[in-house]
C-alpha cells in the first residue's frame, strides 16, 4: 500500500457517479484529500502527478452497507486488516461492519475497539453498525444513544431477527427518538426454521430444506407497518423476493421513510446455483427464482432498491467443506462485486451508471453521507477498467474467504486504482 | 471377409467327435451347455443333432471373466439359464472359438457354482491355438492358425457362418 498526498490529475477517464453517465473522457484533479476540479478546470490546474486512466471509469469509491469484517472474532474467518484490504481491492472506500461479531457490537467499548483497529489497520473507512438489541438476542434494547455517540452509523440486527413484534416496535420508537437509522434484515424466524435454500424447484428436486418467500415477505410487511407507525428511518437489508420489492415501493409511495438494498449476487444468481449441491451458494436470504431476480433488477433500475451491497461473509474453508445443509451461509464477495455488476451490464440488465449509483450515492444517502464526483468531496475514488479481466482463485483473492461466487474464470471489470481521502489504497500494478 | 468354411461339414465333424467321446466314456444322458453368444448357436444345432431329451443350457460368463479390473462389466449381460440340475451330471460344454482358454475357465467356474458335475466334455467349432491356460478341447471341428492381423468371428444365428477379417491393429 503506497501513500501519496499532494495533487494528482487523472486524465482520460470517463467520470461516472449517481448523476454522471461518463459519455466522454474528462480530467479530475485531487489535492489534499479532496476533489478540487473536474473537466476543463482540472486540466488547467497544477498537479504533481498526472495519471493516464484512459479506457477506465473514474467513480466515487464504493460504499458497502453490509460487510462482515469478522473482527472482533477468532480470526479464522478473517479480520479487519485482511477484509478491509480485500474491500479496497474491490473498489470500496467505506464499508459498514456488521454488528454480528464475537462479541456482538452492542456496546460503545466494542465500537471503539473496532474503530481503533480500523484506524491502525484498515486502508479504508470502516463504519461500524451497532446491534439494535443486546447480544442481538432480540430481548433488551442496546444502549443506542451511546453506540451512536461512539461512532455507529446505524443500528441493525445482522441476520438475527427481533422475534418479538412488541420489542421490535420499542426498538423503532427508541431509535426514532435519537434519530438513528435502523438497518434490519427481514426474517421471520419461525417460517425460516431449519431451511437453507429457496423453497422452490431446486429445493424440491434436491430435497433441500426450504425457506419460503413468506419467511421474508411477512417480516417486510411487519417492519414496514411498524416503521410507518413509529416514524423511524428504516433500511431493509438484502431483499430477495419480488413481493418484497413491491411492498417497499408501495410504502415509499405512502411516504414511509424506508430504503432497501440487495446483495449483488442476488441480482446474478438464482436457486439454480445450488443445483450441483455447491455449498458456496448457501446464502441468507437464499438465492430465489428467476422472477425474483428480475424484480430485484427492476427495483435497482427504478431506485426502489437504492443500494447494492456485497454481503461479504468470509469463512475458513472448513465452514464450507461439507454437504450444503451442514455449511455456514455466505459468499466471499467483496472483491467480486464490481465484476458481477459488469456481467449484468454486459447482459444489458443494468446500465453502468445504475451499478455505480447503487454502489456509491445510493448507499451513501442511506448513511446521510455523499459519494459523488463533485468539487469539495473527499477524494474517495475507484478507477476501474470495464474491459480488462481478472480471475478469482486462492492465489489472487485477498480475503480470508476463498469461496468467491465465480472462480477460475475471466471476470470483467478490473479495479485499477483506489484512493481513500486522497491516499492510494489499492493499485493493481502492486 | 470370406465365409471360408462349410458350416455343415464343421457341424458333422463336431457331432461325430462328440458321439465317439460319449461312446468311449459310456455316457448315456449328457446335458448340453452353450456359452453366449456363438457357443449357444452351435450348441442349439448340436442339441437337435444329438436328439437330447433335456433342454439346452445357456451360460453368460460376464460375472466370471478374469479381466473385470481391466475392461469392466459387459453392459449387455443376460442371466445364465441352466434348466436342469448340474450336480452329478455329465456336461457337454460348447463354445464357438477357443484361443486363450480363459473363457472356458470362467465357464467351468460358473458351472461349479450350480453344483458339482460328474464330468465336462469341451467341444469347440474352431481352435485358434495361442493357449494361455492348460485347457484343451475334447472335440474340435477345425484348427486354424492366424496371422497377427487376422480375426475370426462366428456370425449368426441364421445363417450361421464363420467370417475371417483383416484388422489394422
Amino acid at each position: 500500500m503506497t501513500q501519496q498526498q499532494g495533487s494528482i490529475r487523472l486524465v482520460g477517464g470517463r467520470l461516472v457517479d449517481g448523476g454522471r453517465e461518463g459519455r466522454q473522457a474528462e480530467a479530475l484533479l485531487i489535492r489534499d484529500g479532496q476533489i478540487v476540479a473536474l473537466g476543463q478546470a482540472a486540466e488547467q490546474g497544477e498537479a504533481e502527478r498526472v495519471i493516464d486512466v484512459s479506457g477506465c471509469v473514474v467513480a466515487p469509491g464504493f460504499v458497502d452497507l453490509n460487510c462482515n469484517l469478522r473482527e472482533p472474532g477468532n480470526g479464522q474467518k478473517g479480520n479487519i486488516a485482511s477484509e478491509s484490504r480485500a474491500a479496497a481491492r474491490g473498489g470500496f472506500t467505506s464499508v459498514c461492519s456488521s454488528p454480528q461479531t464475537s462479541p456482538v457490537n452492542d456496546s460503545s467499548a466494542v465500537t471503539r475497539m473496532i474503530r481503533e483497529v480500523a484506524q491502525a489497520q484498515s486502508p479504508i473507512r470502516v463504519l461500524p453498525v451497532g446491534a439494535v438489541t443486546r447480544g442481538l438476542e432480540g430481548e433488551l434494547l442496546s444502549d443506542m444513544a451511546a453506540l451512536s455517540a461512539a461512532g455507529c452509523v446505524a443500528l441493525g440486527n445482522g441476520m438475527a431477527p427481533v422475534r418479538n413484534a412488541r420489542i421490535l416496535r420499542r426498538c423503532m420508537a427508541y431509535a426514532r427518538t435519537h434519530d438513528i437509522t435502523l438497518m434490519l434484515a427481514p426474517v421471520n424466524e419461525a417460517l425460516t426454521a431449519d431451511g437453507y435454500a429457496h423453497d422452490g424447484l431446486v429445493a424440491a428436486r434436491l430435497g433441500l430444506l426450504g425457506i419460503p418467500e413468506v419467511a421474508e415477505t411477512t417480516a417486510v410487511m411487519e417492519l414496514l407497518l411498524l416503521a410507518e407507525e413509529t416514524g423511524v428511518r428504516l433500511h431493509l437489508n438484502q431483499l430477495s423476493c419480488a413481493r418484497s420489492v413491491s411492498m417497499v415501493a408501495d410504502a415509499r409511495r405512502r411516504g414511509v421513510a424506508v430504503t432497501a438494498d440487495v446483495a449483488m449476487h442476488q441480482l446474478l444468481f438464482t436457486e439454480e446455483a445450488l443445483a450441483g449441491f455447491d455449498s458456496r451458494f448457501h446464502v441468507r436470504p437464499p438465492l430465489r427464482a428467476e422472477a425474483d431476480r428480475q424484480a430485484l433488477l427492476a427495483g435497482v433500475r427504478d431506485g426502489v432498491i437504492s443500494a447494492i451491497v456485497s454481503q461479504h461473509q468470509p469463512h475458513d474453508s472448513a465452514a464450507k467443506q461439507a454437504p450444503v445443509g451442514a455449511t455456514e451461509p455466505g459468499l466471499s464477495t467483496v472483491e467480486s462485486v464490481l465484476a458481477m455488476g459488469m456481467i449484468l451490464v454486459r447482459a444489458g440488465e443494468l446500465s453502468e451508471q445504475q451499478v455505480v449509483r447503487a454502489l456509491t450515492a445510493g448507499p451513501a444517502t442511506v448513511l446521510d453521507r455523499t459519494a459523488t464526483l463533485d468539487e469539495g468531496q473527499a477524494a474517495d475514488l475507484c478507477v476501474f477498467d470495464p474491459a480488462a479481466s481478472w480471475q478469482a482463485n486462492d492465489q489472487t483473492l485477498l480475503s480470508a474467504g476463498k469461496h468467491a461466487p465465480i472462480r477460475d474464470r475471466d471476470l470483467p471489470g478490473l479495479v485499477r486504482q483506489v484512493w481513500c481521502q486522497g491516499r492510494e489504497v489499492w493499485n493493481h500494478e502492486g | 471377409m470370406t465365409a471360408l468354411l462349410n458350416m455343415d461339414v464343421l457341424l458333422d465333424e463336431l457331432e461325430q467327435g462328440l458321439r465317439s467321446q460319449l461312446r468311449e466314456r459310456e455316457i448315456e444322458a449328457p446335458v448340453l451347455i452353450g456359452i453366449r453368444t456363438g457357443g449357444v448357436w452351435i450348441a442349439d444345432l448340436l442339441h437337435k443333432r444329438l436328439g437330447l431329451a433335456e433342454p439346452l443350457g445357456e451360460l453368460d460368463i460376464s460375472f466370471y471373466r478374469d479381466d473385470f479390473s481391466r475392461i469392466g462389466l459387459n453392459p449387455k449381460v443376460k442371466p445364465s439359464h441352466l434348466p436342469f440340475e448340474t450336480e452329478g451330471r455329465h456336461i457337454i460344454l460348447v463354445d464357438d472359438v477357443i484361443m486363450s482358454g480363459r473363457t472356458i475357465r470362467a465357464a467351468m467356474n460358473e458351472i461349479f457354482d450350480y453344483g458339482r458335475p460328474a464330468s465336462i466334455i469341451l467341444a469347440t467349432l474352431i481352435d485358434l491355438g495361442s493357449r494361455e491356460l492348460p485347457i484343451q478341447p475334447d472335440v474340435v471341428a477345425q484348427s486354424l492358425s492366424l496371422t497377427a492381423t487376422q480375426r475370426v468371428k462366428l456370425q449368426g444365428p441364421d445363417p450361421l457362418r464363420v467370417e475371417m477379417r483383416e484388422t489394422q491393429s
Partner: protein
Amino acid sequence: MTAHNPSSQSLQLTGDGQLKHFLTLDGLSKTLLTDILDTADSFIEVGERTIKKVPLLRGKTVVNLFFESSTRTRSTFELAAKRLSADVLNLDISTSATSKGESLSDTLLNLEAMASDMFVVRHSQSGAPHFIAESVTPGVAIINAGDGRHAHPTQAMLDMLTIRQHKGRFDGLKVAIVGDILHSRVARSQIRALNALGAAEVRVIAPGTLLPADVESLGCRVEYDMARGMRDLDVVIMLRLQKERMEGALLPSEREFYRLYGLSQDKLALAKPDCIVMHPGPINRGVEIESAVADGPQSVILNQVTNGIAVRMAVMSMAMSGQVAERGRGQQGGDAA
C-alpha cells in the same frame, strides 16, 4: 446465471456415459436405467444358484459408510457386496459425532488411507454423497444409500424392478405414491425413475403439509383425496410415516392420517383389480396400511426385499466397472476368447 459447478450428471457418469458413481437418478437416461434393471435380472438368477456368489469384485474393498444407522439397508448392501466377492467393512458413524462438516472431511481423509474401492454412503444431509464423490480420491466409487430428503436411488430402482416383474412394462402405467412425500428421498427417486422409464402418470397423494413446494415440477400430479387418487391405478406405493411428523403440526394424529391416507381394502378396491401394492418398509401396520392389504394377494412387499440385493449388486458392479473404464482410458483392453 447458474454457477459453474459439475452437475450430478457429469459427476456420476464417465465420458462415454457409463455409471461411475451412483448418486441420483437425475440425468440418467431410460437406456441406462433399463441396463441397471437388466443387469439386476442376471443377478437374480445368480441368487437362485447353490452358490450365490460371483467373483466379479474379488479383491475390492467396499466400505459401508453409514452416518445414519439403518441395519436393514446396510445388510442388503453388505450381502450384495459379499455376493460380488468384495471385502466389506461396515462403519456406523453416529450422526452426532459428524454433524459438523469438518468431521465429515476428516472422516474421509482417514478412510482414504484404507485404500477402499467403494463407499456406500448413508447420510442425513441431502447431497452428502455428492460432496464425498467430489472430495474423494479418483477411482473410488460412491453409492448413495440414502441422503437426507434428496435421493435413495437403489431403493427406487429395486421398486422399478418389482414393477417390471409384475407389469412387464412401464408404458401406460398409472402409479401413485401415498404419504409423506416432503421428507421422502425414496419418493423423489421413484418419481424420477417412473418418469424416465415412461410411466403414463405419477400421482402423489398426501395432505398439503407433507408435500414439498413446487412438487409438480418433479413430474407428478397432486391428489389430496385418496379415493380419487386410487382410480385406475396399476401400482400404489405406500411410504413410511415417521412418528415425529405429529410434532411441528404437520399432522393431527396417526388415526386421522390412517383414516384419510392409510391403504385399506376398501380403498384398494378403487384401483384396478390387478393393482400391486408396494412399500419400501419397514411397515407401520395400521398407520400406512391395513395388515390384510400388506399380507394380501396384491401385496408385493416381500418381493421387494429379494430384488434389493440384485439391484445393489448391479449398481455396485456397474459403478466399479465405470471406475475401471475411467482409469483404463487410453490403455489397451485385452481380448479374451
